């Protein structure tokens, strides 16, 4: 620091220590409660020394909420969303930055607007679309008279229908359909020197070749950051999976937590609930810790 400020330094440490406690205490309380038995966890005040039932509780929570398959589902969904975003956003950003075509700015704005309205506020109609994902196309064919024409000519009545409720695609695709990643890539592609493109073109590389061999390897950092952020974001999704997975075989770990809330009138099994909470909060936490450096850089770059 610039000058000696012992009193200020003392208060700085004091406040930061309070912040540290504020931040870590909930994690600690969850872990400690998860190690108690039914009686100890409901003691007033609860003992802050760890109990001895940690693994028993973890096991009970694991089987009660059937967390094995649920965690696998969460992984599949989070990975699918992350991969989908990373790939599709890169393709779109490449198209926007490296080509000039009519309607390019319109497309840019069409994609940009998707950042404004999150899934939560258009949840009801999105649910309807996922129940029959071909509904928009059926409606377009009906409106343009195309289905009428087909029926006249071939006698076949067109009724497109493809339900995606209780499926991984139904879980993943609507979450991929926003533009968070596109803008991260766009910002990055714009900083790639023109000389590189020129050189690639002179060497006879086409657009695809340039994209795969030069642009993508250069964007490794952005991909890692975007992938991490999207993985966390998808893992933590709650409302969407809650709605579209009525069938237990596609339920997510996060939505299963609700089953662990102690019932009114039942035994207050907070130790089991906290063990389940710990299991579900752990995977994203590990990702945050491992990817911290990427993650912070990426977060600041996407501003999301």
């Amino acid at each position, binding site marked *: 620091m610039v000058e000696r400020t012992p009193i200020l330094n003392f208060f700085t440490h004091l406040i930061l220590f309070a912040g540290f406690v504020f931040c870590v205490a909930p994690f600690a309380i969850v872990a400690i409660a998860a190690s108690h038995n039914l009686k100890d966890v409901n003691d007033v005040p609860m003992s802050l020394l760890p109990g001895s039932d940690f693994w028993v509780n973890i096991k009970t929570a694991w089987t009660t909420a059937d967390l094995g398959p649920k965690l696998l589902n969460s992984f599949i969904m989070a990975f699918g969303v992350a991969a989908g975003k990373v790939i599709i956003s890169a393709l779109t950003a490449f198209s926007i930055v490296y080509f000039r075509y009519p309607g390019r700015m319109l497309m840019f704005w069409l994609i940009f607007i998707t950042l404004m309205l999150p899934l939560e506020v258009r949840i009801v109609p999105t649910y309807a679309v996922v129940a029959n994902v071909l509904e928009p196309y059926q409606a377009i064919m009906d409106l343009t008279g195309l289905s009428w024409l087909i029926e006249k000519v071939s006698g076949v009545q067109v009724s497109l229908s493809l339900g995606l409720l209780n499926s991984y695609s139904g879980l993943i695709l609507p979450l991929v359909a*926003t533009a968070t990643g596109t803008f991260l890539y766009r910002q990055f592609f714009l900083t790639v020197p023109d000389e590189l493109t020129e050189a690639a073109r002179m060497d006879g590389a086409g657009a695809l070749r340039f994209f795969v061999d030069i642009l993508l390897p250069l964007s490794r950092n952005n991909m890692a950051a975007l992938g991490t952020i999207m993985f966390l974001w998808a893992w933590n999704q709650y409302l969407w999976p809650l709605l579209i997975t009525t069938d237990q075989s596609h339920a997510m770990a996060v939505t299963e*937590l609700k089953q662990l809330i102690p019932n009114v009138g039942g035994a207050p099994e907070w130790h089991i609930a906290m063990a389940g*909470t710990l299991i579900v909060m752990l995977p994203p936490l590990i990702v945050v810790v491992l990817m911290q450096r990427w993650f912070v850089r990426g977060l600041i770059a996407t501003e999301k």
Partner: protein
Amino acid sequence: MEKRVTFSKWTIGILFAVPQLFLIFTFFYWPAGQAVYWSLTLQQPWGGGNIWVGLDNFRSILSNASYWDSIAASMIFAGISTGLAMVIALVLAALTDRQLAGSWLYRVVLIWPYGIAAPALALAFRFILAPEAGFMAVVNRAWPGFWDPGLDGADAMASIIIAFSWKYVGYNFIFFLAAFQAIPRSLIEAAAMDGSGVIRRFWDIQFPLITPTIFFLLVINITESFQDSFGIVDIMTAGGPANATNLMVYKIYSDGFKGLDYSGAAAQSIILMLLIIALTIVQFRFIERRVHYR
């Protein structure tokens, strides 16, 4: 900023954008349009057809007292939790930026809450703030009936605000710290040489320079408080007691999917969309003027 060098075969270029266009049409524009259409019709549940009713859905929602309660609850929630999360994060980031011994620890740990799913932290806080177990029970023993989020609306609101702010303190902290660290050291050192103290330097140099970040986070926090709150409300209070925490996004869900009132839920979605857009615009208009961009 535009590229000087581009590829000439633009027909191929469009193809690269097709997957995204297909996705946003199917899962964004179509449902958004559908929401507008439904909000203007009376939709029968389970495909029983619909009748055009114009603005009747909006009229009936806006004349419903419980909807105004929901708006009020959302505003209180957004205002207090954003305020708390921003101020706490700003203080912690400003102090961490002083780089005393051990400040790396805060930099590492304060990011953790960001990774926690809202429902998981909601369940954790439901336990931490339970009236009959743990620490609030101690308080309740000293002052019987002091704390009961299951019965007292204000306590329930306080619970969800605490959980939400806890998560966003970590989120805001990252951005604030990055903003502080982007300020050139020499600027602060020069001011110190001129004899200005720590507090003076904060208000005259650092604070003006981080206003873009404050502005950005304000928009993000308020918007997120309208959406990301769903999991917290569902796990901690389920909108209760007596609708005290029935925030707008939760009401859309419960009216639409539990009450099967698709038209009403669609109209509420439109209002929420307009509100989010309006908030963003208002903040741009009124706050951006005082923001100093570098």
